[in-house]
C-alpha cells in the first residue's frame, strides 16, 4: 500500500552456492528474486528467511531423509534476467522454487518453470492474472493479489452487510482510486447496485455537496478508497447529516489517527487490512532468529518463510517431490506458518493469510474474523 523508500543495498549478494559436491544427497530448492539493484531490499529478506528455515530443518534431520540445499539466484526484478535465473534453477535440478519477487519477473520466468513442470511459490508477486488466468497450474503465492482486498470488501458488503445499493467514493489517487474501482467492479458482479462512483480532491474546503448527493442517493453502503484524513472528514459530515449507511475502506484508513480524529463518528466503520502477524508465536520466533543474524523479515520475508513451510509440509505429506503430488498437498493441507494457518485455493492463491475485516468498536479496530467463502 504505502510506498516505502528504497534503500540501496549495501551488500550486493553473490549467491551461488556450490552445487555438485553433494549432488546425490541433497534436495535442492531454488530461491529467485532481486538480490541486487534497487529492489534488492525486497529480495534479500525472503532469501535470508528461507535459508534460516532450511538450516533449521536440516538440523532436525532434513526432508525425506535428505539435507535441503537452497540455491539462490538473482533476477534484479528484471524480466530478461528472470528467464536466465529460471533456466539456471531448472538446470540445477531443483524440486521447487520460492519466488520470484516482482510480478513482471515472475511472469517472465513462469513459462520456463511450466516447461520443466516445477512448482513455484511466490512470496510477493501480487499481479492478479498470475494465478487468475490459470495458465500456470503449478504457481502458488503466499501473498493476496491486488484485487483480493476489493474481493474481500465486496463479499463483506454483499454477504454480511446484505447491501443492495452502494456508493463508491475515492480520492483520485493511485491507491484509492485503484481499490475503489475494483470494489465497484466486484460489487456489480455480485449484483449490488453501484449508484455512483465519485472522486474527491484531498484537502478541499468542504465536501457538503457530495455528502448531500450521497444522502439523496440513499445507499446501504459507502465504500471509500483512500487514506484516513478524507475518510474521517467524509464520514463525520455524513453522520452529522444523518446518513446511516455503513462505511467501508481499505488498509489506507487503518491508522490510529483515524480513531483519534474521527471520534464517535467513525464508530462502526469497517476496514479491510492485512492480518496483524505480530501476535503469532512462530512469527515472533522467526523474527528473533533473524535478528540474531542481523537480518530482518523485511516486507516479504515472512511470506517467503511461510512459502517454504508450506512446501516442506506438502513434500512431507506426499512423501515425494513429484510436482503434481506437491500441488495436491498444498491445496489440501492446512499448515501453520509465519502467516498463521494457511492453505491454497484451486487457483494457487493463499487462503487464510489474506485480508481481514476490522470494525471500529469503542475507539478500537476489532478483527471481525471474516472469512471468504
Amino acid at each position, binding site marked *: 500500500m504505502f510506498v516505502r523508500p528504497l534503500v540501496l543495498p549495501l551488500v550486493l549478494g553473490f549467491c551461488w552456492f556450490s552445487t555438485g559436491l553433494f549432488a546425490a544427497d541433497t534436495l535442492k530448492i531454488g530461491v529467485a528474486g532481486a538480490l541486487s539493484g534497487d529492489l534488492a531490499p525486497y529480495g534479500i529478506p525472503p532469501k535470508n528467511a528461507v535459508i534460516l528455515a532450511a538450516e533449521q530443518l536440516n538440523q532436525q534431520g532434513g526432508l525425506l531423509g535428505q539435507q535441503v540445499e537452497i540455491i539462490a539466484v538473482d533476477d534484479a526484478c528484471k524480466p530478461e534476467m528472470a528467464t536466465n535465473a529460471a533456466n539456471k534453477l531448472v538446470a540445477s535440478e531443483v524440486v521447487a522454487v520460492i519466488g520470484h519477487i516482482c510480478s513482471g519477473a515472475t511472469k517472465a520466468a513462469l513459462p520456463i518453470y511450466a516447461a520443466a513442470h516445477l512448482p513455484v511459490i511466490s512470496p510477493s508477486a501480487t499481479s492478479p492474472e498470475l494465478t487468475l488466468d490459470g495458465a500456470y497450474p503449478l504457481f502458488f503465492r503466499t501473498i493476496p493479489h491486488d484485487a483480493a482486498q476489493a474481493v474481500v470488501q465486496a463479499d463483506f458488503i454483499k454477504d454480511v452487510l446484505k447491501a443492495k445499493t452502494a456508493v463508491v467514493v475515492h480520492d*483520485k489517487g493511485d491507491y484509492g482510486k485503484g481499490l475503489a474501482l475494483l470494489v465497484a467492479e466486484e460489487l456489480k458482479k455480485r449484483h449490488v447496485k453501484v449508484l*455512483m462512483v*465519485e*472522486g*474527491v*480532491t484531498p*484537502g*478541499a*474546503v*468542504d*465536501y*457538503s*455537496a*457530495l455528502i*448531500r*448527493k450521497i444522502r*439523496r442517493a440513499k445507499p446501504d453502503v459507502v465504500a471509500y478508497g483512500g487514506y*484516513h*484524513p478524507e475518510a*474521517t*472528514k467524509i464520514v*463525520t*459530515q455524513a453522520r*452529522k*447529516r444523518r446518513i446511516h449507511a455503513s462505511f467501508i475502506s481499505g488498509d489506507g484508513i487503518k491508522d490510529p*489517527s483515524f480513531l*483519534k*480524529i474521527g*471520534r464517535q463518528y467513525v464508530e462502526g466503520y469497517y476496514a479491510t487490512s492485512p492480518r496483524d502477524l505480530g501476535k503469532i508465536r512462530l512469527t515472533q520466533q522467526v523474527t528473533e532468529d533473524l535478528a540474531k543474524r542481523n537480518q530482518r523479515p523485511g516486507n516479504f520475508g515472512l511470506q517467503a518463510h511461510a512459502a517454504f513451510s508450506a512446501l516442506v509440509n506438502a513434500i512431507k505429506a506426499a512423501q515425494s517431490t513429484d510436482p503434481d503430488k506437491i500441488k495436491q498437498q498444498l491445496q489440501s493441507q492446512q499448515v501453520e506458518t509465519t502467516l498463521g494457518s494457511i492453505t491454497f485455493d484451486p487457483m494457487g492463491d493463499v487462503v487464510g493469510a489474506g485480508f481481514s475485516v476490522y470494525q471500529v468498536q469503542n475507539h478500537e479496530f476489532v478483527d471481525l474474523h471474516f472469512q471468504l467463502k
Partner: protein
Amino acid sequence: MPEWASYLVEIFFSGLTRGSIYALIALGYTMVYGILGLINFAHGEVYMIGAFVGLIFASLFSIMGLPIWAIFVLAMLAAMVWSGAYGYTIEQVAYKPLRKAPRLAPLISAIGMSIFLREYVILAQSADFRAFPAMFESLPDLGDFGDFLQPSELVIITTVFVVLAGLFYLIKFTKTGRAMRAIAQDREMAMLLGVDADKVISMTFILGSALAAIGAVLISTQMGQINYNIGFIVGIKAFTAAVLGGIGSIGGAALGGLVLGLTEAFAAGYLSSDYEDVFAFMVLVLILIFKPSGLLGKHHVEKV
C-alpha cells in the same frame, strides 16, 4: 416542496458555504494586489496558521472551562490577532525591502515565505493531522429547515456576511479605508498628500490576514481536522476567485468567491465531484475570455 427543488436548495447552500470561505480568503489576495500590485503567495499559509492558533487557543480555553460560544469567539479573535501579526511580519520581512525591486523579486520571496511557514509548522506542530475542537456540535437543530442547512453552515454564512459588511463599511466610510483606496489609486500622490503609505500597507496585510484567520477557524471547526497543508488548495481556489472577480476589486473578490463556490457545488451535486475543479477552472477561463479583467475588475490602460 418537491424533492428536486429541495435538493437544489441544499446544493445552493453547499455552494454558498464554500463560496463565502473562498470570498473571505480572496479578499486578502485582492487587497494586497490592489495596493501593492503584488500576489501574496504566503496568504494560504497565513490561513493555515490561523487554524493552528485557533486550535491552540480553543484547547486552552476549553481547559479553562469557558462556555462553547465564548471559546469559539475568543479562539477566533486570538487567531485573528495572531494571523494579523504574521501578516504584518511577513510584509516587513519579505516584501517591504523589495518594494522598489523588479516585480518578480517579491513574487519569489512570497513563494519562499510560503515554504518557510509550512516547514516551520511541520517542525513546531508535526506533519500529522490534528483534531480541531468540534464547537458547532452543540448548536441547536434547525428543525424543518435543518434538512437544507446545517447549523454550522448557517454560522459560517452569517459570520462571513457580517464580516464582509464590516469590511465594506471600513473601506468606504472610514479614514483608513479612504487612505487604502487613495494608495491603491496612486501611491506617490497619496504620500504627497500626507497619507502614511507604510502604515496603510501594514494595515492592509493585518486586515487580510485577520480575514483569513476567520475563514480558517470557521472551516476547521466544520471539518474537524487540520494539518500544515490545508492552506494550499484553499489558497489556490481563493486566488482563482480573486482573479475571477477582478483582482484588486473588493466586491469582485466577494462575488468571485461565491461564483466559484456555487459552480463547484453544482458541478459536484449534479455532474460528478470528480470534475468540480474542472468546472471551476472552466468558468474562470470563460469569464476571462469575455471579461479579461474579471467580473468587477477595472480595465487598466497600460501606461507607456
